[in-house]
């Protein structure tokens, strides 16, 4: 049986993380103090174990796949990449825009993009809902709880 590519990638990824942590532990002192155990000991152990676990995952992948994961059923559920992209884009746009555009508008953009990812094309409704939700949360936190969410382009316009 051919090994599923996704599972190979996951197992390889875990192995790589283990290798990186193990590598990083060599830059940390492992001795010293009364305990004679420095800050590098636990990272080294975590790195070694993750390497071993990654190898064990690889072994599973090539001997019939991850145990208990029905890869055929998973592949049967089609992956909706546009939906994935809309949700991802919404969060990343929020990270890019929050400081310049401010909380209310970046939340609205996030809201509209995530809703679109779930196949909602009622743009006007989503824009309005996003604006109202964003403004309500902004008001609650900035005037009610005294936290400061960024006003962005509305700086000076809002009290």
């Amino acid at each position, binding site marked *: 049986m051919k090994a599923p590519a996704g599972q190979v990638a996951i197992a390889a990824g875990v192995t790589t993380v283990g290798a990186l942590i193990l590598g990083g532990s060599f830059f940390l002192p492992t001795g010293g103090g009364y305990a004679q*155990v420095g800050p590098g000991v636990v990272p080294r152990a975590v790195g070694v174990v993750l390497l071993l676990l990654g190898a064990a995952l690889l072994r599973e992948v090539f001997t019939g796949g*991850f145990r208990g994961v029905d890869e055929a059923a998973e592949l049967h559920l089609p992956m909706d990449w546009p939906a994935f992209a809309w949700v991802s884009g919404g969060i990343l746009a929020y990270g890019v825009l929050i400081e310049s555009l401010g909380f209310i508008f970046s939340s609205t953009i996030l809201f509209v993009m995530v809703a679109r990812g779930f196949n909602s094309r009622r743009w006007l409704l989503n824009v309005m809902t996003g604006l109202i939700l964003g403004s309500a949360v902004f008001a609650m936190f900035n005037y009610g709880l005294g936290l400061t969410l960024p006003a962005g382009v509305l700086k000076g316009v809002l009290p």
Partner: protein
Amino acid sequence: MDVWAQLMQGFSVALTAPNLMWCLVGCALGTAVGVLPGVGPAVTVALLLPITTKVDASGALIMFAGIYYGAMYGGSTTSILLNTPGESATIVTAMEGNQMAKRGRAGPALATSAIGSFFAGTLATVGLTFLSPLVVELGLKFGPPEYFALMVLAFTTVSAVLGESTLRGLVSLFLGLAIGLVGIDNQTGQARFAFDIPQLLDGIEVVTVAVGLFAVGETLYFASKLNSVDEKLETIKGSIWMKAEDWKRSIGPWIRGTLIGFPFGTIPAGGSEIPTFLSYAMEKKLTKHPEEFGKGAIEGVAGPEAANNASSTGTMVPLLTLGLPTSATAAILLSAFQQYGLQPGPLLFESNSALVWGLIASFYIGNVMLLVLNLPLVGLWVKLLQIPRPQLYAGILVFATMGVYGMRQSSFDVFLLYVIGLGGFLMRRYGFPTAPVIVGMILGPLAEEQMRRSLSISQGNWSIFVTHGISAALLALTVLVLLAPLLVRVFRKRLPAG
């Protein structure tokens, strides 16, 4: 002071007006997030952690605990009325409960789960009240090597016993431990895996990880994979009250469910899935109406619901008395304690007894509130299920990003949130459990501290962990837990041959 006096002192804390209000807010919020798909108690408590700077410790912790056990009540409503379960612990309820609803018996199903939850939650709180002082006494005898061994055992049971694969559970645990390593080592001040990025020097916040794994990962998975799956919301027809026969058939399962659930919660195995499955299997065997199972047997709702509530209250025993979190939400509760500079454990019962007993007393009050919130007022929560999915998930993400960004006003955290969300998506897709990540990242640094303390005592001699009796026994138990599935497999192979 004996238990009664301490409990009375606890009630005097829990019954003050502000604490009653926090309890009600927690229970209501918990029910709401339990009902809503896509958001659970772990994310909610994580997002609310910042209020610890504004609210006093007892108020905030009473509210957080209310969210935790309130979600168990709310989750059953969703699994009865919707064919997709709201919380993982209510999968079994979904099997029988949804069948009952399809046959027009949604009312009695909701009633037996709410009353059963109340019954189990209250009995388990009684158990918590009387068991805690005993465990505290035991815990006072523990030194660093015993605590380290206990934490190693908890790590193992949380990741290896739960879930379908020991291997994938361990991978999740060690990824969590790796996340816990990032930041400044609290014993030497050495920076680890921070790559000179100032935001990483402070360590990765549990809020970012919990929200990323549970809210963002879940939303990505649901949007791209399950959008095509049909959901059907059942309506409540007729009376929600149970008939005499329903009562008669529910009482036994409630009692048995509680007796299964509570011990499972208290041992460091965590999670409420296993006791619900056990209770379901037991009721299926004992019932006088086996033909109804799979088609809406009330016993199959009453038992598992009692079991999951009893076990979630049970997890408070190791959390409060030993500082051992055995579920994702319990781990986040532990970090809530840490926000106040408090460390749950036997010493907390001495130094902050009013706080601890106030919290325990609030469980009695909270369960009464939840019974009222979930039975006469159930119609209110059903309305939440009518929010269309696109707007629901969009709203959840607005709150999720706000909480993560607002913590430090840093857009770095938003990108980190997305990266962890991607990880959560992959874990969900490939069947890795997420709870061990949270437990690992919070308990990991504590375990490392206990380990290095032990080695300070023994001046670097590792044999300290096996020369101390209790610690040696706990470590032996850990090895046994890890090897048990392997041994069973070997035996099964040999059996037919021999």
